[in-house]
């Protein structure tokens, strides 16, 4: 074969291959959409006798990996345990809690893919999220704030609204979207998790770290050179999340939430996790 012919065949076969790949991707996308049809979560957890909760492992106070035991520990994790106990009572089926580690960026996708049944992972109830997943009633009232180095002179989010400022957040959290409304001129960097974000703040990659106050207080207790300033500038009610269209699971969870508040478990957990946090009035969190 002469060269020109060889080249022609080469070009044609690459075009065919490209078309095949595009076709494959499109049909896989359609298939994925079909597969994400919802099954009844409440029925599934009763059948399997366990609830697979998604919890954080990078957030002090709410969900942090204990390096000694290899288990996540925090307020969210304990709420998950308490809810599981309560839900077992309500269904009459003994259930246990299984934990899967999620990040702000992966939690919704893991839920949609049914890797987990629900998540309690410092997730704010927002209208955008409610379009794709279901939330229980709020179990914790947080608000967005900023963490800065002590003596930095930054007093509130307003001091960061200029082109010189860089604000660090975590990808997938509500706070990186919100902060653009309060400091539209500042540059926003979204890192992978709170550990990385804190490391970046310490390295001077930005002047402030923004997220919900509860999480920031957790970071401040671990890093004494840093402090939460300016109070909260948004309201972030945390909810327990389930896949879309799970009215029964949400109803049962709301009932269980009410029950653990009524029997005092909730306040015990608030005391356990938030009593020693400097700058935070833990009594105000009690229900």
């Amino acid at each position, binding site marked *: 074969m002469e060269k020109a012919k060889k080249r022609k065949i080469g070009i044609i076969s690459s075009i065919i291959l490209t078309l095949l790949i595009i076709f494959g*991707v*499109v049909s896989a*996308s359609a298939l*994925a959409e079909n597969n994400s049809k919802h099954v009844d979560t409440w029925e599934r957890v009763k059948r399997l006798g366990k609830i697979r909760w998604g919890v954080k492992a990078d957030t002090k106070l709410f969900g942090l990996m204990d390096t000694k035991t290899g288990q996540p520990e925090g307020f969210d994790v304990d709420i998950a345990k308490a809810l599981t106990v309560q839900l077992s009572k309500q269904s009459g089926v003994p259930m246990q809690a299984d934990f899967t580690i999620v990040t*702000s*960026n992966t939690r*919704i*996708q893991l839920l*949609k893919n049914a890797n987990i049944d629900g998540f309690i992972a410092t997730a704010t109830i927002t209208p955008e*999220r409610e379009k*794709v997943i279901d939330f229980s009633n709020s179990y914790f009232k947080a608000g967005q704030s900023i963490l800065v180095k002590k003596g930095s002179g930054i007093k509130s989010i307003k001091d960061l609204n200029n082109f010189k400022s860089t604000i660090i957040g975590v*990808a*997938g*959290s509500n706070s990186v*979207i919100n902060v653009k409304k309060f400091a539209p001129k500042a540059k926003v*960097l*979204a*890192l*992978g998790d709170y550990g*990385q974000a804190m*490391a*970046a703040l*310490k*390295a*001077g*990659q930005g002047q402030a770290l923004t997220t919900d106050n509860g999480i920031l207080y957790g970071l401040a207790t671990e890093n004494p050179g840093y402090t939460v300033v300016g109070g909260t500038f948004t309201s972030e009610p945390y909810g327990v999340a389930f896949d879309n269209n799970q009215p029964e699971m949400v109803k049962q969870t709301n009932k269980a939430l009410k029950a653990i508040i009524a029997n005092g478990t909730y306040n015990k957990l608030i005391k356990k996790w938030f009593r020693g946090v400097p700058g935070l009035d833990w009594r105000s969190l009690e229900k």
Partner: protein
Amino acid sequence: MISLLTSNFHSFLVAFGYTLLSSIIALIASTVLGTLFAILQIVPSKTANVIARAYIEVFRNIPLLIIVMFFYLVVTKIVKIGGFTAGTIGLTLYTSAFIAETVRAGINSVGIGQTEGARANGLSSWQTLRIIILPQAFKIAIPSLGNQFINLVKNSSILAFVAGGDLMYTANNVAATTFDSFNSYIIVGIFYLIITLPLNYYMKFLETKLKGMA
């Protein structure tokens, strides 16, 4: 997928620019650095050999992520560098170690007779290297260099870890705001192909062209 692309087209385009820029800088810099260290390995000086060996072994055997994180979190305390710069520097150092090895293998496979002949004809050792050995070495090294370049472009996704604004970083952000991870990652996958496929094709073209010249 199309609607996700059009509604976030500007973000993806900017990200594509960052990935392309980072790849081009790292490609040029790592080729220069890699060649330099390949030469340092073969020059008749024990000190130069040891330095080159140490450089290559260190950067070839440490995960890229650690190198990048080191620049992003540690070096920045001395000299201010952002995520994009830290990522590109890390990418350059890491890839240059592999390129040094590839070029050295190319130099070694040029027969000793070439050097002897050049020297006998009165060329200095530097001239021998520059005019006789390196051109032949590169010709031999081209297929594996092509592999290194493609790996480099793909490895540039490391920038996402240090908020470098590249394709992978943008895919994460778009996935997080639209909750459509599936299509976000497919779209950036295609953007990477837009860089790597022509690069691959060009390296193949270079290979055949140089073969014809021999």
